[in-house]
């Protein structure tokens, strides 16, 4: 008995969000293995169809935003989306709190994006041309470009954290006010608090989906910008080509 208690005490320094992060990761890993274990081209199961739909939509989104072949980017971006979405929803389970309600977790995710940008940029365009993009439109903009890189990572982390944390915090405040300040009138205010928490829960469900989407899209925008940072002439040519393509598609 004492030994178990000692082990539990030794594990106490690991924060809650680390447990829930690893829990979400384990669930997603097991689920991915289970889904991809028996892939069939003929008569795919319901689960396979659902995940095929998800992957297809992510590919489409990537192609539209990054305007390149989506294949190298979908693994990272799709993982980010699925992880953030599931992690946001974990907070809905009574007794658990979202890992994304912890700034450390969202900062980690943002750092992944921060590192992925030069990785993909250098891979797509080469070291020199990637670095040269920092000097555009002219060398004077170098500090601002670097500053932008840092602040957008910061805002990526804090946006997700702020939205998820405030959702959980509001629930806590509503329940806390009813059970402490208005304790004498609990019979009157309990139904009000119940309805209010219900609406707040629905609101945080919506927030969970939207924030996962926004995180993914922003990561894609950043990666896409690093991959195809062109000079003005190239951009004009690419846009003309795209317009012609759209016209050709439209006339069909």
């Amino acid at each position: 008995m004492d030994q178990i208690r000692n082990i539990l005490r030794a594990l106490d320094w690991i924060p809650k969000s680390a447990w829930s992060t690893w829990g979400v990761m384990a669930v997603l890993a097991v689920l991915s293995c289970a889904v991809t274990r028996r892939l069939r081209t003929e008569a795919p199961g319901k689960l396979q169809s659902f995940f095929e739909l998800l992957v297809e939509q992510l590919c489409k989104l990537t192609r539209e935003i990054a305007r390149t072949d989506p294949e190298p980017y979908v693994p990272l971006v799709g993982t980010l989306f699925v992880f953030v979405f599931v992690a946001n929803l974990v907070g809905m389970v009574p007794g658990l709190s979202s890992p994304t309600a912890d700034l450390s977790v969202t900062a980690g995710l943002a750092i992944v994006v921060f590192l992925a940008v030069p990785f993909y940029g250098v891979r797509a365009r080469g070291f020199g041309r990637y670095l040269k993009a920092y000097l555009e439109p002219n060398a004077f903009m170098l500090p601002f470009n670097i500053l932008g890189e840092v602040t957008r990572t910061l805002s990526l982390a804090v946006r997700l954290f702020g939205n998820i944390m405030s959702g959980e915090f509001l629930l806590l405040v509503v329940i806390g006010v009813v059970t402490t300040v208005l304790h004498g009138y609990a019979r009157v205010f309990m139904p009000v608090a119940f309805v209010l928490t219900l609406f707040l829960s629905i609101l945080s469900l919506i927030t969970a989906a939207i924030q996962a989407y926004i995180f993914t899209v922003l990561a894609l925008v950043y990666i896409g910008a690093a991959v195809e940072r062109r000079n003005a002439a190239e951009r004009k040519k690419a846009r003309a080509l795209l317009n012609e393509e759209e016209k050709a598609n439209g006339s069909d």
Partner: protein
Amino acid sequence: MDQIDAATLLQVVRLIVAGATIAIGSIGPAFAEGRALAQALESIARQPDASGTISRTLFVGLAMVESTAIYCLVMAFIILFVK
């Protein structure tokens, strides 16, 4: 009346300033997001075909506008918790 010591006074000032930071700092982004949303709705009403592109750009744009409010949130946290 009892004398208020410096630490309590500092705490009170912190609370007031943090509240003011969020309150004032979210006015601008709220107006901006409202404008962007109204414009996007109008565009979608005019051209329902382009709703996919419009709403995706809207989301990214809203996220950008929102970051101003998020910086205010960060500042409020710093004011509240950093000693």
